């Protein structure tokens, strides 16, 4: 397959994620397990012989979930629950809730009673990531998750299987990192929306298939594409559910050259250390990745400053502007916002805040705001 075909395949997967995952389930005759949040150790689900995928609801009005969740909860949990209540997840064999935030935690309670999905696992990750006792707990909690997978899927998630799964997931992460580097160095060679499709597709298809397609894509990208001197922008926040927003930036004549989002960079950044996996055990190595990866706002690590991180990311990719993109009603990210804003102000990088709800994007207005923002960056030069 050439570049265009691969991108088309990814686009197809991302435009109908559930259809796609269902198809793969039938084709590969494997159970599929949905999860919330990128802290889920996908390798473990994979090693249990299942296909993991991320649950993100649809961009439309919620129909049933409003009877269970207040309107002041974030779109991710409202639309996710709606999928389940509408029967759209009936083909799914299990759901995994890693501890993220107060909302995900309560969603798990509600889900358990109402979603009627066979396997339900809570992986109560520590919130603190900087102490030895937290690390010990994390390893034990992952161990408990391994046991629960064994029991439910009547299998043995052996160290050997885990090591193999870690390898294929590292390959996926490497591929996406390479893609991000290319986008950063030659932003004209692929659109931001396509880059985002590559990341999201990894959440909705068997990882081996994704690896195969990515290899073809990477071999066929025109890295020589000459770039004009367009403004460079990065994104920071939780989920990008409206890829239109990426289009708006690039159509306004700027490039999206990186991000700190959970539907982007935070999903694949940092590999599991395979050598550590050999020496200490794969679970320890997975725990190590969870601790080391750039943290999300919902975690606590006083040794990791998200403000400094954002600044250094901006420096690294030579960003001249930052778009904060949040799903509304997200506590962890809203708490971090003023701090992140301040750290950008210190280095005089302009920024805007976009809050969206999945049932009400108001795209027209967003387009105008983004155009004005890009204009402002230009004037800033």
């Amino acid at each position: 397959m050439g570049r265009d075909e691969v991108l088309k395949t990814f686009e197809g997967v991302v435009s109908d994620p559930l259809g796609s995952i269902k198809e793969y389930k039938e084709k590969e005759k494997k159970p599929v397990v949905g999860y919330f949040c990128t802290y889920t150790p996908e390798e473990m689900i994979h090693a249990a012989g299942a296909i993991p995928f991320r649950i993100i609801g649809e961009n439309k009005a919620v129909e049933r979930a409003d009877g269970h969740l207040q309107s002041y909860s974030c779109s991710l949990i409202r639309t996710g629950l709606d999928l389940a209540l509408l029967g759209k997840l009936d083909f799914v064999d299990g759901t995994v809730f890693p501890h993220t935030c107060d909302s995900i935690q309560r969603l798990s309670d509600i889900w358990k009673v109402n979603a009627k999905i066979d396997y339900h696992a809570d992986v109560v990750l520590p919130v603190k990531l900087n102490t030895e006792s937290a690390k010990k707990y994390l390893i034990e909690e992952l161990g408990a998750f391994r046991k629960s997978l064994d029991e439910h899927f009547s299998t043995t998630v052996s160290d050997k299987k885990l090591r193999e799964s870690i390898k294929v997931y590292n390959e996926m992460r490497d591929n996406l990192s390479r893609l991000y580097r290319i986008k950063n160095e030659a932003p004209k060679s692929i659109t931001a929306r396509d880059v985002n499709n590559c990341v999201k597709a990894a959440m909705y298809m068997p990882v081996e298939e994704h690896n195969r397609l990515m290899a073809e894509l990477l071999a066929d990208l025109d890295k020589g594409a000459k770039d004009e001197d367009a403004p460079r922008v990065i994104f920071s926040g939780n989920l990008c559910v409206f890829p239109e927003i990426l289009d708006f930036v690039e159509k306004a004549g700027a490039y999206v050259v990186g991000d700190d989002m959970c539907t982007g960079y935070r999903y694949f950044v940092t590999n599991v250390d395979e050598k550590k996996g050999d020496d200490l055990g794969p679970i320890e190595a997975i725990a190590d990745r969870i601790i080391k990866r750039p943290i999300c706002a919902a975690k606590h690590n006083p040794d990791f400053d998200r403000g400094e991180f954002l600044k250094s990311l901006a420096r690294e990719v030579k960003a001249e502007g930052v778009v904060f993109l949040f799903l509304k009603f997200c506590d962890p990210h809203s708490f971090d916002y003023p701090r992140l804003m301040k750290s950008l102000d210190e280095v005089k990088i302009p920024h805007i805040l976009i809050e969206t709800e999945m049932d009400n994007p108001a795209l027209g207005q967003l387009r105008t705001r983004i155009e004005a923002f890009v204009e402002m960056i230009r004037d800033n030069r």
Partner: protein
Amino acid sequence: MRELMTAYYTEAKTAEIDGSKKIAWITSGGPVEPLHAMDVIPIYPENHSAMLGASKMSIEMCEVAEEMGYSRDLCSYFRGDIGSAVTKKSPIPGALPKPDFLVAANNICGTVTKWYEILSRFFDVPLFLLDTPFIHGKITKQSSEYVEAQMRELISFLEVNCGKKFDHDRFKEVAETALEGLYLWEDILATCENRPAPMSCFDAFFFIAPIVTLRGTKECNEFYRKLLAELKQRVEDNIAAVPNEKIRLLWDNIPIWTRLRDLSELFASHGACLVADTYTNAWARTKIEGDDPVKGLGNALHKAYLNIDFQQMIKEVKGLIKRFSADGFVIHSNRSCKPYSLGQFDMARTIQEELDIPTIIIEADQTDDRVFSEEQTKTRVEAFIETVTEKIKKAL
């Protein structure tokens, strides 16, 4: 009680000036007993934010936080607190005394983790976070060991920040005093099992301050002993909180601090008494058990009401409805507090179906009065009272 609380804040303000004692800001579900054992004055920003609400200062303070970039959708306790820290405005002259260090436990919410991170940067003081993994079903071995390990880490943290050794004997004493206080508090709430109830939850909301802020002190227990005697006397004399008590109700969630009087009068005008609530009862859960009080305290904090799944919460609610012979269930859907509010719709349905108890959901906020709709609340409460009255009549 006013004197008790004034004395407490005066001591804290004095310590701020002369440095005679260390001051720690702590979350409502936090490990306060070790602080008392180390002679540290604990300060509760949540309690202070409730005061901001009751004194109608919260909106102004929230707006200051919003100016700083904090979303209006964040917990109004946090917004009120940061607004007050920045402006020094408060019902307490000069606002809360500056902390020497911070102690947070996330057994009530993830909000406090972020809130205290922000305070730690704002005041440039160290923060200890007690991370209490959420309990789905049973407590796991690994999570209780994790909490216990952190309790030991907390002790080292206190030793470093207070510059002295931890006094285990003193801690044991404090733990015992705290336990006694908790039993007293439990007994106080239990007086409302009587018909008519000698006080309502609106009184309990007021009287809760000592068990939150002064738990583990002699003053706290003395105060409660007197209060308990008084309430028992009222029961004896058949004095009702709501004259002609006809309806008994259970309240769920944090009070709407800005509307205590209005709501209390509204319910009372229909002969309805809110005889119990999940909020003040949650405090009676923090009992230290076993012979190792450090471990026991960790365990008790781990099992906090907001740290258990809602199947378990429903069980507790059912228990309260039975114990207090409630005829109806009043649910405050509190925009500020997701861990307390998400799941309430399912809870309401279960209670209604399994116990055949009418429920009402009031959409509001603990201190952000801008989201409160007076008219709507009044109409809905009245309709609800009617339903409950009908049901009681039928049962007769």
